């Protein structure tokens, strides 16, 4: 029998606010354990949470960017359970009245576009962090993360392959980062993903029994875990077994999922409205104000780059990976008028140097204005492409504009045919054997003679001119 996987994802994204969702403690990552804490996030008796307005606005941004309907009234609820990282014994979340519902994003897999539905987006507080020590019978609790704002984004079970799931995850990730409401760091846990996956015979409408996958902390692991789980469930079904509804943990080193069976109890969270937090009422005006702050999103930007700058979709994808990089590229285009040249330099030398120096595009020592100027200098034949590499290296080191470097180092291209003619005469005289072989048909040696000329001019000769003069002189011999 042929089976079809059905996949839905639950994503938790930490919002980039300065303070926590219900108190004024800092959300900064990496502080000393239990130092960003106060009576509210420690769950002391008698304290009251007060809603951080930015959390509502950030969540509204995500809702608008993913085509969701924003509910005019939303409320908080208590999700009750006991765990050492949860000081109050309940998590403040949203249940019956989430901020947003019924949205979608479009993804592309192998050239096919597909629309993935978003069931809901709601706001909640994060729990603290548990630190485990293998050699000790204890666990350690750090409550800095308790009460840090999260949004949970729940998808419809619309994905049918691991690849689609990974594409959806990447799309949401880039939107969150573009909106500057989440840093998207998967290792530090500010972007986390759980997956629900089940199999059903092709043509059957009802879903099969699903397993919930956890512990996948990279895009690659999400895809690998889903691929593994799909084949595991297929094997179970084909050998006449039944898939159990359970939570399974992805084991990165073994490349398999393990059942959490035995440790899990049936969850009964007994949600009820949180009496400490009043309802949030969102007016059309407020939505309108937030809508004005939504920047051009990655997919739109990508399509515009292809259209406006006539660059390949792949290049557009690389250049729009972050908003800062896309801005850098567009500024370079504006300063040079050369979209293709700008794309080659940004994707090649700029990204290469950034990676090597472990820098972010915003701290690039070469500014778009100077890169643009350099590209213009190549275009008007002031410098050759080879010299440009040297100039760029120097710009990266010193932060100086290209004009200054070219002048100081005397790197201007030799486009004076008189000067080049005499250099080429010298080259031809110095290489009689190669000239002879060229004349007898070994045309490959033309390149060698060009190389010798470039070397004699320390790379400063205009290559187009060298080609011309060399051809002329050789055919006259």
């Amino acid at each position, binding site marked *: 029998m042929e089976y079809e996987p059905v996949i839905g994802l639950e994503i938790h994204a930490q919002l980039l*606010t300065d*303070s926590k969702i219900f108190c*004024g403690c800092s959300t900064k990552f990496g502080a000393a354990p239990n*130092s960003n*804490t106060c*009576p509210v996030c420690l769950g002391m008796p008698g304290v009251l949470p007060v809603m*951080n307005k930015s959390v509502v606005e950030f969540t509204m941004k995500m809702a608008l960017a993913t085509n969701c309907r924003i509910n005019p009234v939303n409320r908080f609820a208590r999700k009750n359970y006991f*765990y050492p990282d949860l000081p109050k014994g309940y998590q403040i979340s949203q249940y019956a009245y989430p901020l947003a519902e019924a949205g979608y994003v479009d993804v592309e897999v192998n050239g096919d576009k597909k629309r993935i539905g978003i069931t809901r987006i709601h706001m909640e507080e994060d729990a603290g962090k548990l630190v*485990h020590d293998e050699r000790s019978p204890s666990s350690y609790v750090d409550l800095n993360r308790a009460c840090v704002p999260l949004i949970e984004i729940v998808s419809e079970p619309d994905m049918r392959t691991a690849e689609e799931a990974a594409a959806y995850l990447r799309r949401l990730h880039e939107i969150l980062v573009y909106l500057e409401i989440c840093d998207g760091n998967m290792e530090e846990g500010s972007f986390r993903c759980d997956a629900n996956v089940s199999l059903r015979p092709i043509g059957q409408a009802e879903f099969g029994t699903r397993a919930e996958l956890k512990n996948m902390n990279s895009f690659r692991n999400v895809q690998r875990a889903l691929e593994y789980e799909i084949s595991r469930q297929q094997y179970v079904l084909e050998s006449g077994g039944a898939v159990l509804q359970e939570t399974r943990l992805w084991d990165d080193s073994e490349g398999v999922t393990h059942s959490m069976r035995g440790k899990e109890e049936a969850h009964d969270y007994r949600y009820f*409205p949180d009496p400490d937090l009043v309802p949030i009422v969102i007016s059309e005006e407020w939505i309108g104000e937030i809508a004005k702050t939504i920047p051009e999103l990655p997919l739109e930007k990508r399509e515009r780059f292809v259209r406006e700058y006539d660059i390949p979709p792949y290049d557009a994808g690389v250049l729009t990976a972050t908003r800062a990089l896309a801005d850098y590229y567009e500024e370079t285009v504006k300063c040079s008028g050369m979209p293709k040249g700008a794309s080659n330099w940004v994707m090649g030398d700029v990204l290469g140097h950034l990676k090597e120096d472990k820098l972010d595009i915003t701290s690039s020592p070469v500014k778009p204005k100077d890169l643009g100027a350099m590209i213009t200098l190549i275009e008007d034949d002031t410098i050759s492409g080879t010299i440009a590499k040297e100039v760029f290296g120097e710009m990266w080191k010193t932060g100086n504009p290209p004009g200054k470097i070219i002048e100081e180092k005397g790197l201007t291209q030799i486009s004076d045919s008189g000067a080049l003619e005499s250099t080429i005469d010298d080259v031809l005289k110095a290489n009689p054997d190669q000239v002879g072989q060229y004349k007898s048909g070994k045309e490959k040696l033309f390149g060698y003679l060009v190389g010798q000329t470039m070397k004699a001019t320390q790379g400063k000769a205009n290559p187009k001119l060298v080609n011309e003069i060399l051809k002329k002189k050789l055919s006259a011999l």
Partner: protein
Amino acid sequence: MKITKHEVEYVAHLARLQFDEEEKEKFTSQLNDILVYMDILNKVDTSGIEPTTHAIDLTNAFRDDIVKESVGTEVTLTNAPDKFGDCFRVPKVIE
């Protein structure tokens, strides 16, 4: 009966409470009385009325996203039944 002893045991377990048999019987009967009393309220016609979650008619009580000073690790751990370094220490929770 609106509630059985079995349900009392279940709710007690969720709340991590332990009761002896006598207490279980007592709470079953008490909770039953409360639920029977609720039936009186259920007789009120509430059709067309939004469920009420708050007694006061207040919405959008916000604070601005501004960091305030925290109380610090030492104060945070003052009442900890057990601690180690800057952390609360609890019995191992996984594996």
